[in-house]
């Protein structure tokens, strides 16, 4: 294997990509799947995590073009050069270009080039690998059609990419909070021995995983953001499907794994909680002077973290959930109300468990616990119905 001179590499494990356009040779879904699968090849042997962006500047911008296309390396029509990509870096760094004059396919037939194989090779460059002179290596410069169904990365490529980024973390990230004991659920049958689980961003299929649970949830300027580990699902009235992003693509300096979050829409502010600290954020900007200790809000020293928070825009009260109790904070007086903490179950009938995340929307509270959510009437605090946590994703 080889790397580029001075071995450029991405300095963080969360790398973003964006597909700028599509080839008319293939269905868009097949292009997206080929690209996602190519990323998964590299994420399965490194600590890298890839998130697809649908707008804005991503680390790796992927596009199809022919002949001259704005860089110094024009394509050459059918055959010859199929694609090229740039080593990690700003601007064009990391970008991958595919020659539209080729015939792209999701198959490995003679009359076309398999997009997954070529993309996997080019993304090797986008991550910092040069060419390999090992015949059969993915980073060998010459295209070789091969069976892609259970394509495994050759050892030379694994050695190469791990020389830059090291091996994957030993196990998939554990939930960021100790989820309360759930009823035993059968492990869905896996047709193949489990490999290192993919660490590429959640896909549409995972949106509808019945076991999906969240760390924290909030509204934000008319949208709803669902946080889990280092990812955020974004449900917006402005676009149809659910968007998957990394937290760092919005707030690079905020560590992932929030415990709780809520919006004070009158102030256009979102408050994030992690451990015994909290941050106030306006849009993308973290307000100066943060983080602050949660004791500033009036919590006793014994409270080291909170499980969930939700703000009621009408009463200007914010409820904080810690274990089986909750506090009420008056945003006007900026102080905890007297008589708290109180038992959650005493006031919110039917909510007998702890609360992982909480949301205020459409005149209701939604309390999330594992893969379930409980819709509660804001005024009467009575339980209305129970749903799956991901019912917001139109599964």
């Amino acid at each position, binding site marked *: 294997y080889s790397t580029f001179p001075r071995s450029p590499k991405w300095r963080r494990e969360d790398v973003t990509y964006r597909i700028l356009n599509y080839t008319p040779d293939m269905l868009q879904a097949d292009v997206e799947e080929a690209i996602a699968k190519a990323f998964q090849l590299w994420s399965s042997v490194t600590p890298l995590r890839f998130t697809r962006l649908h707008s804005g500047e991503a680390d790796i911008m992927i596009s199809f073009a022919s002949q001259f296309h704005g860089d110094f390396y024009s*394509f050459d029509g059918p055959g*010859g*050069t199929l694609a*090229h990509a740039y080593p990690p870096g700003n601007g064009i760094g990391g970008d991958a270009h595919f*020659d539209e004059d080729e015939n792209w396919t999701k198959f490995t037939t003679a009359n076309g080039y398999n997009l997954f194989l070529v993309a996997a*090779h080019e993304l090797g460059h986008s991550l910092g690998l040069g060419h390999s*002179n090992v015949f059969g290596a993915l980073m060998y*410069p*010459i295209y070789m059609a091969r069976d892609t169904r259970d394509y495994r990365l050759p050892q030379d490529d694994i050695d190469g990419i791990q020389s830059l980024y090291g091996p994957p973390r030993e196990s998939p990230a554990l939930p960021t909070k100790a989820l309360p004991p759930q009823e035993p659920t059968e492990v869905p049958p896996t047709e193949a021995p489990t490999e290192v689980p993919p660490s590429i961003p959640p896909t549409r299929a995972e949106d509808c995983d019945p076991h999906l649970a969240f760390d924290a949830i909030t509204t934000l300027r008319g949208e709803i953001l669902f946080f889990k580990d280092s990812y955020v699902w974004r449900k917006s009235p402005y676009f149809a499907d659910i968007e998957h992003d990394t937290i760092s693509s919005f707030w690079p300096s905020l560590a992932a794994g929030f415990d709780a979050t809520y919006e004070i829409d009158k102030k256009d502010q979102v408050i994030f909680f992690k451990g015994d600290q909290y941050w106030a954020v306006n849009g993308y900007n973290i307000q100066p002077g943060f983080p602050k200790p949660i004791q500033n809000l009036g919590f006793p020293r014994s409270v080291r973290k909170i499980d969930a928070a939700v703000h009621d825009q009408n009463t200007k009260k914010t409820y904080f959930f810690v274990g089986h109790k909750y506090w009420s904070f008056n945003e006007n007086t900026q102080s905890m109300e007297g008589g708290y903490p109180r038992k959650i179950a005493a006031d919110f009938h039917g909510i007998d468990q702890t609360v992982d995340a909480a949301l205020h929307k459409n005149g209701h509270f939604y309390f999330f616990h594992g893969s379930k959510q409980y819709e509660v009437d804001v005024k009467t605090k009575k339980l209305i119905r129970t749903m799956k946590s991901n019912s917001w994703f139109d599964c």
Partner: protein
Amino acid sequence: LPVVPEKETEDIQFAQKYLENFYDFKEEKSSLFKSKNFNLMAEKIREMQSFFGLEVTGELNSQTLDVMKQPRCGIPDVRS
């Protein structure tokens, strides 16, 4: 210099372009150094033959041309 047949001229031009793209070959523009050019090109052909595990002859033989004509990635195999 020996008169080079048409086909070979094409092959040499193709090979020159390939070596420029992927092996950092820079043609000496002034004819004064033409002979040096050929040595330089032979050196780059040797480098490419070695990378692909071909017999290292420095000559533009058919095996070498075949490999050069394979569809491939546009990134150089070696770079200064």
